[in-house]
Protein backbone atom coordinates (compact mmCIF):
# COMPACT_ATOMS: atom_id res chain seq x y z
CA UNK A 1 0.00 0.00 0.00
CA UNK A 2 1.28 3.45 -0.87
CA UNK A 3 1.88 5.29 2.38
CA UNK A 4 1.40 8.70 0.72
CA UNK A 5 -2.24 7.93 0.09
CA UNK A 6 -3.01 7.07 3.67
CA UNK A 7 -4.39 9.75 5.91
CA UNK A 8 -3.10 10.45 9.40
CA UNK A 9 -6.19 8.80 10.83
CA UNK A 10 -5.52 5.64 8.85
CA UNK A 11 -1.92 5.57 10.02
CA UNK A 12 -3.04 5.99 13.61
CA UNK A 13 -5.47 3.11 13.25
CA UNK A 14 -2.76 0.91 11.76
CA UNK A 15 -0.41 1.77 14.60
CA UNK A 16 -3.13 1.00 17.12
CA UNK A 17 -3.47 -2.38 15.41
CA UNK A 18 0.23 -3.04 15.99
CA UNK A 19 1.93 -1.69 12.90
CA UNK A 20 5.30 -0.15 13.75
CA UNK A 21 5.73 0.91 10.13
CA UNK A 22 2.69 3.12 10.45
CA UNK A 23 4.38 4.93 13.31
CA UNK A 24 7.52 5.38 11.21
CA UNK A 25 5.37 6.98 8.53
CA UNK A 26 3.84 9.33 11.06
CA UNK A 27 7.30 10.32 12.23
CA UNK A 28 8.59 10.98 8.74
CA UNK A 29 5.48 12.90 7.80
CA UNK A 30 5.47 15.24 10.79
CA UNK A 31 9.02 15.50 12.10
CA UNK A 32 9.91 18.50 9.98
CA UNK A 33 6.96 20.61 11.07
CA UNK A 34 7.45 19.60 14.67
CA UNK A 35 11.06 20.67 14.40
CA UNK A 36 9.96 24.01 12.95
CA UNK A 37 7.46 24.64 15.72
CA UNK A 38 10.00 23.73 18.39
CA UNK A 39 12.64 25.79 16.64
CA UNK A 40 10.30 28.78 16.57
CA UNK A 41 9.97 28.55 20.33
CA UNK A 42 13.39 27.48 21.62
CA UNK A 43 15.49 28.94 18.80
CA UNK A 44 18.18 26.29 18.80
CA UNK A 45 18.33 23.59 16.15
CA UNK A 46 19.91 20.96 18.41
CA UNK A 47 17.36 21.53 21.13
CA UNK A 48 14.54 21.54 18.58
CA UNK A 49 15.74 18.18 17.25
CA UNK A 50 15.86 16.77 20.78
CA UNK A 51 12.38 18.08 21.47
CA UNK A 52 11.13 16.46 18.27
CA UNK A 53 12.53 13.15 19.50
CA UNK A 54 10.79 13.60 22.83
CA UNK A 55 7.53 14.45 21.09
CA UNK A 56 7.57 11.17 19.22
CA UNK A 57 8.58 9.17 22.28
CA UNK A 58 5.63 10.61 24.18
CA UNK A 59 3.27 10.17 21.26
CA UNK A 60 4.41 6.56 20.79
CA UNK A 61 3.41 5.82 24.36
CA UNK A 62 0.08 7.66 24.14
CA UNK A 63 -0.98 7.07 20.55
CA UNK A 64 -2.70 3.85 21.55
CA UNK A 65 -5.25 5.94 23.42
CA UNK A 66 -5.55 8.66 20.77
CA UNK A 67 -9.25 8.99 19.90
CA UNK A 68 -8.99 11.48 17.08
CA UNK A 69 -10.95 14.24 18.77
CA UNK A 70 -8.51 16.66 17.15
CA UNK A 71 -6.26 16.26 14.15
CA UNK A 72 -3.09 14.24 14.71
CA UNK A 73 -0.97 17.23 13.70
CA UNK A 74 -2.74 19.45 16.26
CA UNK A 75 -2.18 16.83 18.93
CA UNK A 76 1.51 16.55 18.01
CA UNK A 77 1.94 20.34 17.94
CA UNK A 78 0.39 20.58 21.36
CA UNK A 79 2.90 18.10 22.76
CA UNK A 80 5.64 20.03 20.96
CA UNK A 81 4.48 23.31 22.41
CA UNK A 82 4.36 21.97 25.96
CA UNK A 83 7.76 20.30 25.72
CA UNK A 84 9.27 23.43 24.20
CA UNK A 85 7.90 25.58 27.01
CA UNK A 86 9.26 23.12 29.55
CA UNK A 87 12.58 23.30 27.80
CA UNK A 88 12.60 27.08 27.94
CA UNK A 89 11.65 27.02 31.60
CA UNK A 90 14.37 24.53 32.42
CA UNK A 91 17.01 26.52 30.61
CA UNK A 92 15.55 29.88 31.49
CA UNK A 93 15.81 30.99 27.91
CA UNK A 94 13.74 34.10 27.50
CA UNK A 95 14.22 34.78 23.87
CA UNK A 96 14.81 32.98 20.64
CA UNK A 97 18.15 34.62 20.07
CA UNK A 98 19.72 37.06 22.45
CA UNK A 99 18.97 40.64 21.51
CA UNK A 100 22.63 41.49 21.93
CA UNK A 101 23.54 39.05 19.19
CA UNK A 102 20.94 40.49 16.86
CA UNK A 103 22.10 44.02 17.55
CA UNK A 104 25.66 42.96 16.85
CA UNK A 105 24.73 41.56 13.45
CA UNK A 106 22.56 44.43 12.32
CA UNK A 107 24.77 47.46 11.69
CA UNK A 108 23.52 50.73 13.06
CA UNK A 109 23.68 54.23 11.61
CA UNK A 110 23.26 53.12 8.04
CA UNK A 111 20.35 53.84 5.76
CA UNK A 112 17.94 50.97 5.16
CA UNK A 113 19.04 50.72 1.55
CA UNK A 114 22.68 50.24 2.61
CA UNK A 115 21.59 47.57 5.06
CA UNK A 116 19.63 45.71 2.40
CA UNK A 117 22.77 45.73 0.32
CA UNK A 118 24.88 44.27 3.11
CA UNK A 119 22.43 41.83 4.68
CA UNK A 120 20.18 39.43 2.84
CA UNK A 121 16.49 40.20 3.24
CA UNK A 122 15.69 36.74 4.53
CA UNK A 123 18.26 37.22 7.29
CA UNK A 124 16.54 40.47 8.24
CA UNK A 125 13.16 38.79 8.33
CA UNK A 126 14.62 35.92 10.32
CA UNK A 127 16.00 38.26 12.91
CA UNK A 128 12.83 40.34 13.04
CA UNK A 129 10.87 37.18 13.77
CA UNK A 130 13.46 36.19 16.34
CA UNK A 131 12.98 39.47 18.15
CA UNK A 132 9.28 38.86 18.68
CA UNK A 133 8.19 37.76 22.17
CA UNK A 134 7.99 33.97 22.38
CA UNK A 135 4.19 33.73 22.38
CA UNK A 136 3.74 36.14 19.50
CA UNK A 137 6.49 34.42 17.56
CA UNK A 138 4.94 30.99 18.08
CA UNK A 139 1.49 32.16 17.06
CA UNK A 140 2.87 33.96 14.02
CA UNK A 141 4.86 30.94 12.81
CA UNK A 142 1.98 28.54 13.34
CA UNK A 143 -0.44 30.85 11.55
CA UNK A 144 1.66 32.23 8.78
CA UNK A 145 3.87 29.29 7.88
CA UNK A 146 2.15 26.21 9.28
CA UNK A 147 -1.12 27.59 7.99
CA UNK A 148 -3.08 26.65 11.09
CA UNK A 149 -6.32 28.37 11.99
CA UNK A 150 -6.59 30.59 15.06
CA UNK A 151 -8.83 27.93 16.65
CA UNK A 152 -6.21 25.21 16.11
CA UNK A 153 -3.48 27.41 17.55
CA UNK A 154 -5.72 28.18 20.53
CA UNK A 155 -6.13 24.45 21.12
CA UNK A 156 -2.40 23.82 20.83
CA UNK A 157 -1.46 26.64 23.15
CA UNK A 158 -4.43 26.15 25.46
CA UNK A 159 -5.54 29.76 25.12
CA UNK A 160 -8.69 31.60 24.05
CA UNK A 161 -9.07 32.21 20.33
CA UNK A 162 -9.32 35.95 21.00
CA UNK A 163 -6.00 35.90 22.82
CA UNK A 164 -4.38 34.07 19.93
CA UNK A 165 -5.75 36.57 17.42
CA UNK A 166 -4.47 39.45 19.53
CA UNK A 167 -1.03 37.86 19.74
CA UNK A 168 -0.98 37.29 16.02
CA UNK A 169 -1.93 40.83 15.04
CA UNK A 170 0.57 42.27 17.51
CA UNK A 171 3.26 40.11 15.94
CA UNK A 172 2.33 41.26 12.43
CA UNK A 173 2.27 44.89 13.50
CA UNK A 174 5.74 44.61 15.05
CA UNK A 175 7.09 42.85 12.01
CA UNK A 176 5.74 45.56 9.74
CA UNK A 177 7.35 48.22 11.86
CA UNK A 178 10.68 46.44 11.76
CA UNK A 179 10.58 45.26 8.18
CA UNK A 180 8.72 48.19 6.67
CA UNK A 181 11.75 50.17 5.53
CA UNK A 182 13.57 47.11 4.21
CA UNK A 183 10.60 45.78 2.29
CA UNK A 184 9.79 49.19 0.83
CA UNK A 185 13.39 49.70 -0.27
CA UNK A 186 13.51 46.23 -1.79
CA UNK A 187 10.29 46.84 -3.63
CA UNK A 188 11.56 50.16 -4.91
CA UNK A 189 14.78 48.54 -6.17
CA UNK A 190 12.81 45.87 -7.98
CA UNK A 191 10.65 48.46 -9.75
Amino acid sequence: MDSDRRTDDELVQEFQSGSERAFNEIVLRHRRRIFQVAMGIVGNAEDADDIAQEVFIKSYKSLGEFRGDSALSTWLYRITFNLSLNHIRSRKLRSFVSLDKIAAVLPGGESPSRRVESVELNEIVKRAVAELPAKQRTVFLLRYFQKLSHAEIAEIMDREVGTIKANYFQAVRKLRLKLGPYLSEKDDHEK
Partner: protein
Amino acid sequence: MTREELLDKLAEPLHLMSESDLAHAEKLALSDREVALSLRHSKALSGFEIDEIVGEPLTSDAEFLTALREKLEPKPALIDRLLWQSGLFGRPRLLAVAATLGVLLVVAVFGIRSGGTLAPVWWITSGQQMFSYDELYLEDDASADLDYEALAYYMDVSDVVDDWNLMSYEDTPLTDLWLTLEAESQEEVLKQFAETSFF
Protein backbone atom coordinates in the same frame (compact mmCIF):
# COMPACT_ATOMS: atom_id res chain seq x y z
CA MET B 1 -15.78 45.02 2.74
CA THR B 2 -14.67 47.95 4.82
CA ARG B 3 -11.13 49.33 4.75
CA GLU B 4 -10.48 48.04 8.27
CA GLU B 5 -11.61 44.55 7.35
CA LEU B 6 -9.35 44.63 4.33
CA LEU B 7 -6.38 45.67 6.45
CA ASP B 8 -7.09 42.78 8.83
CA LYS B 9 -7.17 40.37 5.91
CA LEU B 10 -3.88 41.72 4.65
CA ALA B 11 -2.37 40.85 7.99
CA GLU B 12 -3.22 37.21 7.39
CA PRO B 13 -1.22 34.97 5.07
CA LEU B 14 -1.80 36.06 1.51
CA HIS B 15 -2.91 32.63 0.33
CA LEU B 16 -5.98 32.94 2.56
CA MET B 17 -7.24 35.95 0.59
CA SER B 18 -9.76 35.34 -2.12
CA GLU B 19 -9.12 36.59 -5.63
CA SER B 20 -11.81 39.24 -5.28
CA ASP B 21 -10.42 40.52 -1.95
CA LEU B 22 -6.96 40.72 -3.46
CA ALA B 23 -8.24 42.65 -6.45
CA HIS B 24 -10.09 45.00 -4.12
CA ALA B 25 -6.93 45.57 -2.07
CA GLU B 26 -4.84 46.34 -5.15
CA LYS B 27 -7.41 48.80 -6.38
CA LEU B 28 -7.58 50.52 -2.99
CA ALA B 29 -3.77 50.57 -2.70
CA LEU B 30 -3.59 53.03 -5.58
CA SER B 31 -5.14 55.74 -3.41
CA ASP B 32 -4.51 54.50 0.17
CA ARG B 33 -0.88 54.47 1.33
CA GLU B 34 -1.54 52.26 4.38
CA VAL B 35 -3.30 49.63 2.32
CA ALA B 36 -0.51 49.83 -0.24
CA LEU B 37 2.15 49.20 2.44
CA SER B 38 0.14 46.36 3.99
CA LEU B 39 -0.27 44.70 0.61
CA ARG B 40 3.44 45.06 -0.11
CA HIS B 41 4.44 43.58 3.23
CA SER B 42 1.99 40.74 2.90
CA LYS B 43 3.33 39.82 -0.52
CA ALA B 44 6.91 40.02 0.70
CA LEU B 45 6.33 37.82 3.77
CA SER B 46 4.36 35.31 1.78
CA GLY B 47 7.38 34.85 -0.42
CA PHE B 48 9.29 33.26 2.42
CA GLU B 49 9.34 29.60 3.29
CA ILE B 50 9.50 28.60 6.92
CA ASP B 51 12.80 26.81 6.30
CA GLU B 52 14.27 30.20 5.49
CA ILE B 53 13.00 31.59 8.77
CA VAL B 54 13.73 28.85 11.29
CA GLY B 55 16.18 26.64 9.41
CA GLU B 56 16.12 22.91 8.79
CA PRO B 57 16.61 19.91 11.08
CA LEU B 58 20.21 18.99 11.72
CA THR B 59 19.64 15.29 11.13
CA SER B 60 18.40 13.40 8.12
CA ASP B 61 15.14 11.45 8.27
CA ALA B 62 17.07 8.17 8.51
CA GLU B 63 19.28 9.41 11.35
CA PHE B 64 16.30 10.82 13.18
CA LEU B 65 14.28 7.63 12.84
CA THR B 66 17.21 5.42 13.87
CA ALA B 67 17.89 7.49 16.98
CA LEU B 68 14.20 7.47 17.84
CA ARG B 69 13.89 3.72 17.43
CA GLU B 70 16.90 3.17 19.68
CA LYS B 71 15.19 5.19 22.38
CA LEU B 72 11.88 3.43 21.90
CA GLU B 73 13.35 -0.06 21.94
CA PRO B 74 15.89 -0.12 24.77
CA LYS B 75 18.22 -3.09 25.09
CA PRO B 76 16.77 -5.86 27.29
CA ALA B 77 18.03 -6.28 30.82
CA LEU B 78 20.98 -8.60 31.40
CA ILE B 79 18.91 -11.39 32.89
CA ASP B 80 16.47 -11.20 29.99
CA ARG B 81 19.31 -11.43 27.52
CA LEU B 82 20.72 -14.45 29.30
CA LEU B 83 17.38 -16.20 29.42
CA TRP B 84 15.95 -15.33 26.06
CA GLN B 85 18.82 -14.61 23.74
CA SER B 86 18.71 -17.04 20.86
CA GLY B 87 21.50 -17.91 18.48
CA LEU B 88 24.77 -19.78 18.58
CA PHE B 89 25.98 -18.67 22.01
CA GLY B 90 22.67 -18.34 23.80
CA ARG B 91 22.32 -21.81 25.29
CA PRO B 92 26.02 -22.39 26.12
CA ARG B 93 26.13 -19.05 27.89
CA LEU B 94 23.07 -19.98 29.91
CA LEU B 95 24.67 -23.31 30.86
CA ALA B 96 27.90 -21.56 31.85
CA VAL B 97 25.99 -19.22 34.14
CA ALA B 98 24.11 -22.13 35.71
CA ALA B 99 27.37 -24.05 36.24
CA THR B 100 29.01 -21.01 37.83
CA LEU B 101 26.09 -20.57 40.19
CA GLY B 102 26.31 -24.28 41.09
CA VAL B 103 30.03 -24.03 41.88
CA LEU B 104 29.43 -20.97 44.02
CA LEU B 105 26.73 -22.87 45.94
CA VAL B 106 29.04 -25.82 46.58
CA VAL B 107 31.83 -23.51 47.73
CA ALA B 108 29.47 -21.75 50.09
CA VAL B 109 28.24 -25.05 51.61
CA PHE B 110 31.76 -26.42 52.12
CA GLY B 111 32.87 -23.11 53.49
CA ILE B 112 30.29 -23.37 56.25
CA ARG B 113 31.30 -26.97 57.02
CA SER B 114 34.95 -25.93 57.28
CA GLY B 115 34.26 -23.93 60.41
CA GLY B 116 32.62 -20.81 59.25
CA THR B 117 35.66 -19.51 57.47
CA LEU B 118 33.77 -19.56 54.21
CA ALA B 119 36.74 -21.32 52.66
CA PRO B 120 36.39 -24.75 51.07
CA VAL B 121 37.94 -27.78 52.75
CA TRP B 122 40.66 -28.31 50.16
CA TRP B 123 42.04 -24.81 50.78
CA ILE B 124 42.75 -25.59 54.46
CA THR B 125 46.05 -27.08 55.67
CA SER B 126 45.99 -30.39 57.47
CA GLY B 127 46.51 -28.69 60.85
CA GLN B 128 43.60 -26.41 60.28
CA GLN B 129 41.54 -29.30 59.13
CA MET B 130 42.17 -31.29 62.35
CA PHE B 131 41.37 -28.24 64.39
CA SER B 132 38.23 -27.79 62.43
CA TYR B 133 37.19 -31.36 63.08
CA ASP B 134 37.87 -30.90 66.80
CA GLU B 135 35.76 -27.83 66.80
CA LEU B 136 33.03 -29.56 64.93
CA TYR B 137 32.72 -32.87 66.72
CA LEU B 138 33.88 -32.17 70.26
CA GLU B 139 32.01 -30.14 72.72
CA ASP B 140 33.46 -26.82 73.79
CA ASP B 141 34.69 -28.18 77.12
CA ALA B 142 36.39 -31.10 75.48
CA SER B 143 38.22 -28.97 72.98
CA ALA B 144 39.29 -26.46 75.63
CA ASP B 145 41.45 -28.90 77.66
CA LEU B 146 42.06 -31.70 75.26
CA ASP B 147 44.35 -34.54 76.26
CA TYR B 148 44.72 -38.01 74.93
CA GLU B 149 43.03 -39.73 77.84
CA ALA B 150 39.98 -37.49 77.72
CA LEU B 151 39.79 -37.83 73.98
CA ALA B 152 40.06 -41.61 74.14
CA TYR B 153 37.38 -41.69 76.80
CA TYR B 154 35.16 -39.45 74.76
CA MET B 155 35.62 -41.63 71.71
CA ASP B 156 35.17 -44.80 73.76
CA VAL B 157 38.62 -46.17 72.81
CA SER B 158 40.35 -46.01 76.21
CA ASP B 159 42.26 -49.22 75.54
CA VAL B 160 44.47 -47.55 72.96
CA VAL B 161 45.40 -44.50 74.98
CA ASP B 162 48.83 -45.95 75.87
CA ASP B 163 49.67 -46.32 72.22
CA TRP B 164 48.76 -42.69 71.64
CA ASN B 165 51.07 -41.59 74.43
CA LEU B 166 53.95 -43.50 72.85
CA MET B 167 53.28 -41.76 69.58
CA SER B 168 53.85 -38.33 71.11
CA TYR B 169 56.84 -36.52 69.68
CA GLU B 170 59.94 -35.38 71.57
CA ASP B 171 60.06 -31.78 72.67
CA THR B 172 63.60 -31.44 71.31
CA PRO B 173 63.89 -31.88 67.61
CA LEU B 174 66.12 -34.79 66.48
CA THR B 175 68.32 -32.55 64.37
CA ASP B 176 69.34 -30.67 67.48
CA LEU B 177 70.65 -33.89 69.00
CA TRP B 178 72.82 -34.45 66.01
CA LEU B 179 74.35 -31.03 66.35
CA THR B 180 75.38 -31.55 69.98
CA LEU B 181 78.05 -34.20 69.55
CA GLU B 182 80.00 -35.34 72.48
CA ALA B 183 83.66 -34.34 72.56
CA GLU B 184 84.88 -37.91 72.04
CA SER B 185 82.69 -38.45 69.08
CA GLN B 186 83.87 -35.23 67.57
CA GLU B 187 87.51 -36.24 67.88
CA GLU B 188 86.75 -39.63 66.37
CA VAL B 189 85.05 -38.07 63.41
CA LEU B 190 87.92 -35.68 62.80
CA LYS B 191 90.36 -38.60 62.98
CA GLN B 192 88.38 -40.58 60.46
CA PHE B 193 88.22 -37.55 58.25
CA ALA B 194 92.02 -37.10 58.37
CA GLU B 195 92.56 -40.71 57.38
CA THR B 196 90.24 -40.50 54.48
CA SER B 197 91.92 -40.27 51.10
CA PHE B 198 90.29 -38.69 48.17
CA PHE B 199 90.99 -40.20 44.70
